[in-house]
């Protein structure tokens, strides 16, 4: 578990790798873009609220993409919105992550066949790190999606490029 299981040689000294330190810091403060699209956004807000308390994992909604690490695509991405989603993503500073929440943003969901206005998966415009299934996913599912993302960040390397 990152830093916490490292040997403490002295009361005030922790020995670790720079990489582990960076990853530990990053994965425990993934700030999200304060951005919601459809009914999934209601579940996302419930996840942020006191009962599920997204903040205990360090997820805080930020009012600007410039201050954010993760964008949760919570809902149906219409073709009109897709251009805006792409712009928001491009405005975020690196390293940046994407959680695709719910069937609509995963693959078009119920609009896959007759949704003339729906983008069939947000991964057609921006790269997605974690897909959370559900329609909409329960807060627990979104929390697990975040834990998956944290696992991904924990294994990142500043030297090796991840795929």
């Amino acid at each position, binding site marked *: 578990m990152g830093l916490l299981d490292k040997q403490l040689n002295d009361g005030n000294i922790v020995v670790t790798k720079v990489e582990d330190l960076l990853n530990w810091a990053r994965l425990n403060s993934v700030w999200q873009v304060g951005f919601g699209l459809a009914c999934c956004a209601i579940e996302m807000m419930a996840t942020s609220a006191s009962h599920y308390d997204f903040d205990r994992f360090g997820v805080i909604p930020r009012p600007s993409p410039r201050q954010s690490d993760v964008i949760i695509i919570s809902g149906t991405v219409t*073709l009109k919105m897709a251009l805006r989603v792409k712009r928001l993503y491009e405005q975020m500073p690196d390293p940046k992550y994407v959680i695709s929440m719910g069937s609509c943003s995963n693959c078009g969901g119920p609009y896959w066949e007759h949704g003339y206005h729906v983008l069939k998966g947000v991964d057609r415009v921006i790269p997605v790190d974690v897909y959370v299934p559900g329609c909409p996913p329960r807060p627990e599912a979104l929390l697990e999606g975040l834990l998956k993302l944290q696992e991904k960040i924990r294994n990142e390397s500043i030297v090796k490029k991840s795929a």
Partner: protein
Amino acid sequence: MKSTEEVFEILKGRFGDAVSNLVTGQPVESYFSVSPTEIKNVCLFLRDTDELLFDNLMVLSGVDDDNGERKTAEDGTFTSVGGTLSVFYHLESTSLKQKVTLKVSVPRETPDLESVAEVWRGADWHEREAYDLIGFNFLNHPDLRRILMPYDWEAGHPLRKDYKNPEFYQGMKVPY
């Protein structure tokens, strides 16, 4: 409280042939047709006459009647030729507690009809939606732009029966 039949008779006396085709006995509301050029005058009359006072346009919606000829291409898609598109107006009088439904049919090739946005301000966005999705041309509308689809959508009006979705929009693949 006036029934649709009574409203129809009043309008018949005032506008003559501009109102026609009273349909009753349906499982849905009774309705009658109004000519596309007279609809605004009829609506003003319905709103301002003391015994009618239809002050509220509850909804304005468009329909592709799909009564034209279908020309099927080799790939199975078809184009509709002829026939009509229709706009339905659901009016309500909040003071007299009465309702009436109007229908305006226009030819598919020239879907022009008078806007009622000046009669009820709420009609503005409803007409924009009907224009966006079915493609009516509301004459004298203050701001007839698309309201739901992107402004640069070039593939036509999606709720027409012969609508074909494009392969790409702004570099994004549209079909599944």
